[in-house]
């Protein structure tokens, strides 16, 4: 029954993806995709809620198979929950844009590939869907925006994800060859194989998930995509990449070695810190959001690492809590980031501006989008009682308990705890800045001044995601309980109430907090008194000049000065002199990306130099090539003689 519902869902999704070919209107195609996705998500939710797995189990042979178990069910829910509002949004966003039909079809195919990755039960099917998941959004972006700089960004995306994607192939094929997918234990093959598979998986899946240092494609590709695709890529695709890592670390490599946990902790912490410090200095709205995705993937990875460390330290209860925390953050981040990217699309549409410093005052001009965007910003900034706080609280608690439990990973866990806590602090600065600049205060450009609310489908998509941020924040216990059962051998010490009550914590009774926060706010606002005196902004008596308005760079200047070591601001000051009198002073500052200047540019130089050397072999004259062939033949004959003899 459940399998049938899921199959019908997938069929409708496929029909919706093919519909534009038959010149069916875009809205109808999106509806068809949406209903199909909802059915698939519902099937996933039923399995997640405790129903037995449906479809086939994993197999190492080449016979294709699909199935849904609890983990797949969870990821189907993530895809559906984030993508449904995105499809609604697209119904208002896409009509009128160039080649809308093709983009709609590719969006549906992309969703189909995402569903395929999590449902595949054999190596070939998995790798096939995996590659489609990489290529389809790239195609859609190129079709929607065929500019030179977009082509460049997509090239970098494909280059990095394909070069690193070799790791995925190695990991999956080695495991299929050893029969691990069919149930054999990988650890029986000795630590060298485990190490090889672990590192290959980390490189392959990590690059696709945007983990530092293989993240450089992400902040270039996600911003150039149409906003509904950015939302899907940042909200869902990079999480599906983590799905592969989760399968390997928690299903096939069990018990995962402690060094794998420590590696995940360290990589996660570096990604979190690297991502958010990149986000802090961005001026473009969507690029800022893309950097913040790197941060959140890092936090999720750190949670997964904590789970392995806790398992190894003999604390299965907290191991399953840490695992559930990482999954909950996956869901929460999918919801918030989709909401933020969709808001960014609406804001760009309404103002024509893509720089954060050119927005301002949008809460008044776009009340629906502005309010929804504000909720998502507060959620991702990690303040209670919204969903971002809940999962970040759980991950911090997991890291803390990994530090308490002793064992090998405790010292690393405590260090990562401090780093993730600092990351949360940085995220607060970053998103307070974004919210303040974009939504509050006075408009900072003509575009922002003339902004009006967007069409209804676009509003509905964003508001639906904001409402989900609220709901997931207020009743997290309902979601956390099934997540704690996913891990094989996971603890049943599930939280019961709407809030979260876990051993070794003081509990997170969100309802109580909401009552105090909302009730207190309402009472105090009422007690504030009706007498208000209209006045200009005091500002210590200074006149409020628009030219003196604060910019994002000003807001982060104290921070950039404090962290000069990581965030290296470059300043240039130009003076135009005329007969000894300064006519004009130009001041520019920019923060170069350390990974570009320190890692990728030297690598690029070395590669080009090697290519230059290799070019000397290519003389272009036929006799030389014949000489190469003869030489090669002789070498091969000698080798064959030596080996064979």
């Amino acid at each position, binding site marked *: 029954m459940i399998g049938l519902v899921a199959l019908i869902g997938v069929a409708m999704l496929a029909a919706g993806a093919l519909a534009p070919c038959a010149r069916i209107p875009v809205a109808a195609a999106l509806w068809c995709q949406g209903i199909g996705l909802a059915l698939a998500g519902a099937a996933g939710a039923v399995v997640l809620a405790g129903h037995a797995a449906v479809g086939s189990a994993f197999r190492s042979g080449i016979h294709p198979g699909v199935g849904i178990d609890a983990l797949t069910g969870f990821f189907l829910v993530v895809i559906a929950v984030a993508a449904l509002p995105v499809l609604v949004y697209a119904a208002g966003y896409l009509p009128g844009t160039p080649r809308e039909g093709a983009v709609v079809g590719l969006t549906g195919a992309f969703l189909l590939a995402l569903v395929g990755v999590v449902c595949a039960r054999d190596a070939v099917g998995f790798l096939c869907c995996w590659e489609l998941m990489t290529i389809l959004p790239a195609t859609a972006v190129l079709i929607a925006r065929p500019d030179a700089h977009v082509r460049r960004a997509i090239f970098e995306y494909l280059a990095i994800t394909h070069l690193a994607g070799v790791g995925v192939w190695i990991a999956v094929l080695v495991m299929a060859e050893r029969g691990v997918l069919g149930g054999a234990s990988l650890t029986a093959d000795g630590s060298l194989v485990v190490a090889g598979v672990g590192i290959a998986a980390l490189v392959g899946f990590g690059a696709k998930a945007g983990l530092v240092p293989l993240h450089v494609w992400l902040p270039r590709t996600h911003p150039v995509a149409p906003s509904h695709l950015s939302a899907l890529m940042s909200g869902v695709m990079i999480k599906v990449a983590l799905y592969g890592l989760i399968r390997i670390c928690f299903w096939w490599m069990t018990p995962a070695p402690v060094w794998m946990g420590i590696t995940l902790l360290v990589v996660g912490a570096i990604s979190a810190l690297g991502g958010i410090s990149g986000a802090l200095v961005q001026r473009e709205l969507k690029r800022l959001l893309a950097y913040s995705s790197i941060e959140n993937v890092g936090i999720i990875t750190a949670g997964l690492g904590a789970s392995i460390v806790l398992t190894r330290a003999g604390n299965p209860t907290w191991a399953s809590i840490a695992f559930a925390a990482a999954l909950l953050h996956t869901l929460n981040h999918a919801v918030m980031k989709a909401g933020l990217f969709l808001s960014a699309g609406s804001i760009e549409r309404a103002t024509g501006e893509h720089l954060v410093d050119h927005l301002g005052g949008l809460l008044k001009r776009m009340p629906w989008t502005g309010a929804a965007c504000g909720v998502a910003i507060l959620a991702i900034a990690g303040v209670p009682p919204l969903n971002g706080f809940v999962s970040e609280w759980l991950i911090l*608690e997991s890291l803390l308990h990994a530090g*308490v439990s002793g064992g090998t990973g405790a010292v690393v866990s405590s260090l990562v705890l401090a780093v993730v*806590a600092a990351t949360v602090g940085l995220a607060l600065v970053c998103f*307070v800045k974004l919210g*303040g600049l974009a939504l509050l205060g006075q408009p900072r450009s003509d575009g922002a001044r003339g902004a009006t609310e967007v069409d209804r489908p676009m509003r509905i998509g964003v508001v639906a995601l904001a409402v989900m941020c609220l709901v997931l924040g207020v009743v997290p216990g309902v979601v956390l309980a099934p997540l704690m059962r996913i891990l094989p051998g996971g603890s049943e010490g599930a939280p019961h109430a709407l809030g979260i009550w876990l051993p070794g914590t003081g509990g997170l009774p969100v309802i109580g*907090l909401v009552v105090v926060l909302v009730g207190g706010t309402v009472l105090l606002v009422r007690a504030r008194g009706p007498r*208000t005196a209209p006045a200009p*902004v*005091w500002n210590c008596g200074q006149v409020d000049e628009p030219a003196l308005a604060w910019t994002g760079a000003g807001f982060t200047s104290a921070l950039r000065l*404090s962290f000069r070591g990581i965030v290296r601001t470059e300043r240039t000051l130009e003076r135009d002199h005329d007969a000894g009198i300064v006519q004009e002073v130009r001041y520019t500052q920019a923060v170069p990306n350390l990974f570009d200047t320190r890692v990728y540019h030297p690598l690029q130089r070395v590669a080009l130099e090697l290519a230059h050397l290799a070019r000397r072999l290519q003389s272009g004259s036929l006799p030389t090539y014949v000489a190469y062939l003869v030489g090669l033949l002789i070498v091969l004959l000698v080798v064959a003689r030596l080996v064979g003899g």
Partner: protein
Amino acid sequence: MSAPELVTGIIMLAAIAAAPLVPGLIQQHKARLQGRVGTTALQPYRDLRRLWRKAVVQPAGTSVVYVLVPAMCAAALLAALLITPVGPSAPPFGVGHDALVLVGVLALARCIVALSAWDTGSGFGLMSAARDLTFAVLGEALIALVLLLAALPVGSTDLRAMWLGAAGSHIWTAPAHWCGLVGMLLIVMMETGRQPIDNPDTHLELTMVHEGPLLEYAGRDLAYLQWSVAARHWIVLVLLAGLFLPHPAGALIGPAVVVVWVVVLTVVLALIETFRAKLRLLVVPQLTAVVSLIGFVGVVSWVIGLGR
């Protein structure tokens, strides 16, 4: 409801009203130490009464955020105050007693006050808010490590369990506890906005950290925000006393000792304010980083088993 629960609950509810006494006492001690007559400890109440009678303002161009922030800030501090137990048998008040939830609620207050600065667009408010959030970045790392140090002996982030873990004298043999004490002292000064981190006495625009966004408020709005500052004093001093200062484990005598510690700590803070100058702005993150390192050393010392 048992007697200790009742007494602890009454102390915590009374703290809602008594919190302004804490900054009042500090100001009074400071005046004496500086050879001035100064005000009495009740001055904050007189200020609040004066503000209560005044009208609030609505600066031009502000949105609903400006109206909501003072009330929400006070509500957040109320929640934080109820989360912070003065003794091991504190009643839950429906908000639990988790240490990291407390950090989150305090971060909420900081975040919305910074948003109010963006709403008015006032340069001085934004400058102060930016500094406050900058300090909080490494401050969060330090708080996480200090809470880990306090959670190590009991393996729980329930503040009541942590309170019990720090009671008695056996804990003082562990170097981790001493490292935590050093870290907590810095947190107290950061969260209360006292010297050497910030100077609460001046409204000199260019040096403000906590006061900036408050400049745009008047009347009852300002009263809410000033009560919030006082509540923050109470919360961090109770945390310092309950988690890192010597106190007996008794469910009745313990809370009494914590309250006495809070009063004693007002003298300590006044002494520090009298003898220490304010640090340069960019030195504060460096100091926080160094103290965080001390906290990390404490964790390592615990993991390798020193003193337990």
